[in-house]
């Protein structure tokens, strides 16, 4: 099997098709700290793409409550268990890290492609370790939503589980349009392809014969079978919007963000297109907000990078969640990410203002500096406090045509004083 470089693992790995083509790559950053689980993104996608017959269980975008929720149910726990069984005790990250080639260090365990090498099940050899979820697992998209405590209510009366203290968070998910897609690798019909112009992974419906190998192989379970057409379907990255074909948003053909991104109420989402070289690595460009957040500052981290597909969805982890859980989910970059996000410096704070500010995709941004307007003590992940400086900065986003598409100015925080304590206030 050919060897490709996976920058998220910090090493070469096996992949059936070699390096992905260079060019632009669809990518996004979600700030989990701000997600309120309103499911507006879910419904925006649903009402655009998956409202037909046979698509009832098809949620290309979903928001699940971690640690108990998941769609399909327990998708991540099941795959992590399969990988652990394939490589017991060795699914670990090496120490170190840093640099552009291995920002999180080196993953010493097996990816889903490596774990499947030499494996031949009843249906023949497999390109990636995986499983097909049962109808039961697809049946409840928001099961255990808002569950922060144990599942005691769902257990028989004589069963008990230890109760952990309240913590949970909302994890919004969609297809990661991976650099090394397991769905593409596993398709026996070569019906799945990755577009060189934007890295979006699509299923050619005229070639798909519904073997469901992609459903089995996608570790994030974002390829889904449709019984009414006998084919599999997945997120299309709202490609008409990426191509600038919505004249309302893109009068001059500028790429626009997807439906799920632009509908986000909590302003947790920022989508972009980044430049990728022929080796699959991101080309340095610190003026691109995605590159800045993911590669330059490493504030946003990939979801389960150890699966090995090099997903292009990145997350700013929640500050209040126990560290071992986050490190299992986002890799060893969690500590660095949280320390920076909890008390962002001037430039990072400015870049974070771009989330959900514009419908057009921002290719470049710049900051006009203003005076310092406040100092605010903020909570760090270890419960200590640190002083955050707030500047009256203005951040300007530019679209693909290098025209200004959004301008955001940070303002001084306001404080409401208690009128009972300050009776003479006016």
């Amino acid at each position, binding site marked *: 099997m050919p060897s490709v470089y996976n920058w998220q693992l910090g090493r070469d790995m096996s992949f059936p098709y070699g390096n992905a083509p260079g060019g632009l790559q669809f990518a996004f950053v979600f700030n989990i700290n701000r997600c309120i689980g309103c499911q507006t993104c879910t419904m925006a996608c649903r009402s655009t793409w998956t409202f037909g017959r046979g698509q009832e269980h098809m949620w290309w975008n979903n928001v699940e409550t971690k640690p108990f929720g998941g769609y399909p149910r327990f998708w991540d726990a099941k795959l992590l268990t399969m990988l652990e069984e394939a490589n017991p005790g060795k699914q670990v990250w090496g120490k170190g890290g840093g640099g552009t080639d291995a920002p999180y260090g080196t993953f010493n365990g097996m990816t889903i492609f490596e774990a499947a090498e030499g494996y031949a099940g009843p249906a023949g050899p497999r390109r990636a370790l995986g499983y097909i979820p049962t109808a039961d697992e697809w049946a409840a998209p928001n099961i255990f939503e808002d569950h922060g405590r144990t599942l005691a209510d769902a257990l028989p009366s004589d*069963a008990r589980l230890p109760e952990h*203290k309240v913590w949970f968070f909302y994890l919004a998910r969609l297809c990661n349009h991976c650099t090394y897609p397991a769905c593409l690798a596993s398709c026996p019909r070569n019906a799945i392809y990755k577009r060189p112009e934007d890295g979006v992974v699509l299923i050619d419906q005229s070639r798909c014969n519904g073997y469901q190998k992609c459903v089995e192989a996608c570790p994030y379970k974002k390829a889904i079978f449709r019984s009414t*057409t006998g084919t599999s379907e997945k997120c299309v990255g709202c490609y008409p919007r990426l191509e600038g074909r919505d004249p309302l948003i893109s*009068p001059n053909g500028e790429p626009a963000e997807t439906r799920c991104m632009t509908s986000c109420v909590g302003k947790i989402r920022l989508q972009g297109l980044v430049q990728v070289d022929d080796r699959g690595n991101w080309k340095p460009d610190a003026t691109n907000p995605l590159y800045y957040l993911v590669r330059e500052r490493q504030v946003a981290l990939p979801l389960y990078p150890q699966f090995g597909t090099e997903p292009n969805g990145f997350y700013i982890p929640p500050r209040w969640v126990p560290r071992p859980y986050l490190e299992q989910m986002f890799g060893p970059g969690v500590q660095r990410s949280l320390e920076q996000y909890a008390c962002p410096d001037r430039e990072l704070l400015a870049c974070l203002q771009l989330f959900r500010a514009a419908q057009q995709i921002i290719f470049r941004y710049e900051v006009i500096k203003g005076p310092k307007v406040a100092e605010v003590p*903020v909570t760090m992940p270890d419960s200590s*406090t640190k002083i955050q400086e707030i500047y009256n900065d203005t951040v300007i986003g530019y679209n693909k045509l290098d*025209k200004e*598409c959004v301008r*955001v100015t940070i303002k001084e*925080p306001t404080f409401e004083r208690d009128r009972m304590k300050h009776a003479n206030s006016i």
Partner: protein
Amino acid sequence: MADIEYPNLDPRLRPAEPDHPMSLEGDVISGDPALLVRCLAEEMLMGGMSAPELTALSHSPQYQSLYAARVSLGHEATDRILGEVIARVGVFSSEVWESPIQDETPVALTVSAPRRDGKGD
């Protein structure tokens, strides 16, 4: 239309089967509800939510992140933490100017794909 049989998803109502484990094992994943409330309150305030809105949200069972913490910590402790964070952080805001769209005339978009059997969906 024929009735559809849905799988029984309630674990309490499912009959026990021979391969079901007869003992359950679980682990405590320690967390800090006070840290959760502080962090969430900071995020909401930095997102521009006002102090009264934040307090009202923490009383709403429709938003479990803060409500479950209120249940767990109690009203007094939760209100004390919220008051401390509101006084410390304040309410953030920003001004956003998105470039104006010139023409807002509605346009018909065609985004559907033909069915394989040639019939409409």
